[in-house]
C-alpha cells in the first residue's frame, strides 16, 4: 500500500457517489454526480468532487473499492464489491445496532439483513421490474408533469390513508390519472404513491425484526418515502447523515480493510479472485 487515503465509489444507475477516507477511517470528503451515459466520466467527476477540499490527491489513494451497477467499468478501482455488502458495511458504521437496511436506488431496491457481527444473513433485490424504485417515482412525476420535490411536499401534507394499488409502473401512472379524474386530492394521491413503494419494499423484508436503517437517493430526497416506510414497518427508521452515500461509504471502509489485509503477505496469497480463468 502506498497512499494513505481510501476511496469508495458507487456507480449507480442514476447517480455516482464517491467517499474519501483518511487512514484512521474518518470521512474527509464525498460527492454525488449524475451517472449520465458514461460511468467512467461520472466516476472521474465524483472522485474530483470528493477529493476537493481534502488534503488527498489521486496519488495519495491507497486502495479503492468500486460498487454499484457500473462497478466493473471503473478500471482504476482495486476491487469490486457488490452494493449489497457495501450498503450493509456503510450503514453498520453509522449504526452498530442496525440489523436491517432498506436501500431504494434509481433502478433497484434492496432489503438487507445482517447479524450482530455485521455478517450478511439475507438479502432481497427487486428482480426486473422498476416498481418500487426511484425510476418508478420519476416516471410518475414525468407523467404528472411536476417535479419530484413537489410530489414529496404534496404527500407530506396528506392526512388520508390512501395507497395506489397497481403493481407496475405503467399501470400506476394510469391509476394516478384515474384518481385525478375522480377528484381525489393530489396530496393523497402523492402519499399513496410512496405507500405503494413502501409496500413493495415490505414484501422483501422477510418478516425479520431489528433496527432498520434506510439508505439511497429516494430516502435522502423524499421525506414522504421515510414516512411511508415507517408506517408500514411500524418502527422508526434510522436515517444516516448521508443516506445516498451509504454504498460509497461502505466501499471506502472496505477499501481500508482490504488494504490492511493485502498488506499482510499471507492474505495477499490467498486472495482467490485474482487468478484469471480461461474457458
Amino acid at each position, binding site marked *: 500500500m502506498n497512499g494513505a487515503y481510501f476511496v469508495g465509489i458507487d456507480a449507480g444507475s442514476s447517480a455516482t457517489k464517491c467517499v474519501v477516507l483518511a487512514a484512521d477511517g474518518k470521512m474527509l470528503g464525498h460527492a454525488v454526480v449524475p451517472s449520465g451515459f458514461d460511468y467512467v466520466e461520472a466516476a472521474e467527476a465524483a472522485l474530483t468532487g470528493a477529493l476537493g477540499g481534502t488534503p488527498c490527491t489521486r496519488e495519495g489513494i491507497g486502495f479503492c473499492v468500486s460498487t454499484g451497477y457500473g462497478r466493473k467499468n471503473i478500471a482504476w478501482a482495486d476491487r469490486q464489491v457488490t452494493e449489497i455488502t457495501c450498503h450493509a458495511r456503510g450503514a453498520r458504521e453509522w449504526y452498530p445496532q442496525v440489523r436491517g437496511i432498506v436501500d431504494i436506488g434509481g433502478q433497484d431496491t434492496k432489503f438487507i439483513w445482517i447479524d450482530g457481527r455485521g455478517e450478511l444473513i439475507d*438479502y432481497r433485490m427487486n428482480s*426486473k421490474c422498476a416498481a418500487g424504485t426511484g425510476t418508478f417515482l420519476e416516471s410518475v412525476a414525468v407523467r404528472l408533469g411536476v417535479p419530484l420535490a413537489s410530489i414529496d411536499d404534496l404527500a407530506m401534507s396528506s392526512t388520508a390513508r390512501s395507497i395506489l394499488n397497481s403493481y407496475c409502473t405503467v399501470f400506476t401512472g394510469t391509476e394516478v390519472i384515474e384518481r385525478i379524474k375522480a377528484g381525489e386530492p393530489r396530496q393523497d394521491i402523492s402519499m399513496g404513491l410512496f405507500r405503494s413503494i413502501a409496500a413493495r419494499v415490505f414484501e422483501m423484508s422477510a418478516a425479520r425484526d431489528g433496527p432498520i436503517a434506510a439508505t439511497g437517493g429516494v430516502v435522502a430526497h423524499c421525506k414522504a418515502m421515510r414516512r411511508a416506510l415507517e408506517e408500514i414497518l411500524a418502527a422508526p427508521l434510522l436515517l444516516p447523515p448521508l443516506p445516498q452515500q451509504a454504498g460509497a461509504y461502505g466501499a471506502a471502509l472496505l477499501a481500508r480493510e482490504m488494504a490492511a489485509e493485502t498488506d499482510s503477505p499471507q492474505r495477499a496469497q490467498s486472495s482467490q479472485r485474482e*487468478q484469471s480463468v480461461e474457458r
Partner: protein
Amino acid sequence: MGAAVKRVEIQAQQRLRTLMRDYFLDLDAAARDPQRRVAWCTSVGPCEILAAFGFATYFPENHGALLGAKKVSHQYIPLAVSAGYCAESCSYMNSDIGAAIGGYSPLQEAYGIAGPPKPDLLAYNTNQCREVQDWFEFFGRRHNAPVFGICPPRQLGEVTPAHVAFVRGELERLIHQIEGRFGLSLDRRRLEEVVALSSRASTLWREALETARARPAPIVFWDGLIQMAPVILMRGSRLAVEYYETLLAEMKQRVHDGIGAVPGEQYRIYWEGMPVWPRVRDLSEKCLELRAAVVASTYCNSWAFEEYAGGDPLEWMARTSTEIFINRAESFKEPFLLDMFERFAIDGAVFHNARTCPNNTNSRFGLAQRLREQHNAAVLVIDGDLSDQRFFSTAQTMTNLEAFIEQLETRRRSGNARRPAAQGAGR
C-alpha cells in the same frame, strides 16, 4: 494476477454429439418411413412402454429447452399467446407451440431436418405438471394424432402402495389404449428388457453425478445439462447405457487425477429448480469466475431413478414416476434437500424462481426461508425463467450471485458456515 487456469473439457462429449445427431436423424427417418411409428413423450415417461411397442420416441420438452438455449423463445411465445395460451404459462410449451406455428425449429440448423417428427401418438405423464397435457393436446389436434396419458396422484408426502397400484393401473390402461388404437400387442418380455436398460442408464447417470461429491468436483450442473440428454432421450436403449459407462469412467478418472470442473474450486453450490437456458453460458462463466462449483442440482438428479431389480416392470415405472421429486410435497422435499446439502458438502443453495414454471420452482411456499432460518443454510433466490429471457435480468442476477459469494466468504471467515458431515466421497 496469478497463473491462468484452463478448464478441462469432458472427452465423452465428442461421442455425445454423434449420438444426438444419430438420434434426431433416426427420428426424422422414422417419421417418413410408413413401416415405423413415432411417439411424442414427456421427459419423465412413460417412454419405456412406447419403446417396448417399437415407437421411435421424441421429447418436446427437449425442443423447448433447445429453443431457450438458442435464445429465440421470446420470439415465438407471442405466436402461442395470440393462439390463446397465457404469456405466463410454461415457456417451453409456449415457445414450442409458437415455433410450430412460425415454422421454425433449431433442429433445422443443427441436423438439417425440417423439425420435430410428425407424431403417430402423443403420450404424457402429468406427474410433473398439467401443462404437458394441454401442450400435447395442441399437437394432437394439429397432427390429428391420438393423445393418451397417465395422471398420477400429485404432490405426495409419503408414497403408499395404494398410490403405486393406482399408477400401475393407469399404465395398464395406457397399454390397452395403444394396443386397441394401433392393433398391437405389447411384448412384456421386451418391456422388462427396456426397463432394465432404462434403470441401468439412470443408475450410471446417478453415479456420474455422485462423483461431484469429490473435491474438486469433476462435473458441475452446467456440464450435467448437456450430459443428461441420453438419460432423457435414449433411456431404455443400450446406447444410453454405454454412454454413461464411458462418462462415469471418465469422471472417476478425473477424481483420481484431481481434475475439477471449476479450476480452483472455492465454493460448492446447489442449484434448485430449472436452468435458465438462454443464460446458461453467462451463468456458468460467472460461477467459474467466482470459483463456485455448482456440484449438485435437483434438475439433473430428476432422472436418477432407483434401480430396477427385476420383477414387475410396470410396478417399477409406477413407483419411479410417482416418487419423482417434482411430484412430492414439501414435507419430502425439505429433508431431501438437506440430505443433498450434507452429502455434497454444499456451502450455499441457489433457488431459481422460474416465472413460468411454478411446478419446478420450490421457493414459492417458504421452503427457501425455512432452510435458511431453521437449518442455517445459505440460500439465494433468483428470479428468472427457463426459456423466456424477458423474465430474467442479467445485471440483477449477476449482482445477486456475487453478493451471495461475498456472503459465503464472510460466513466462512466468521466460522458460521453450515458444516456438512460427509465430504470428499469417491476419492
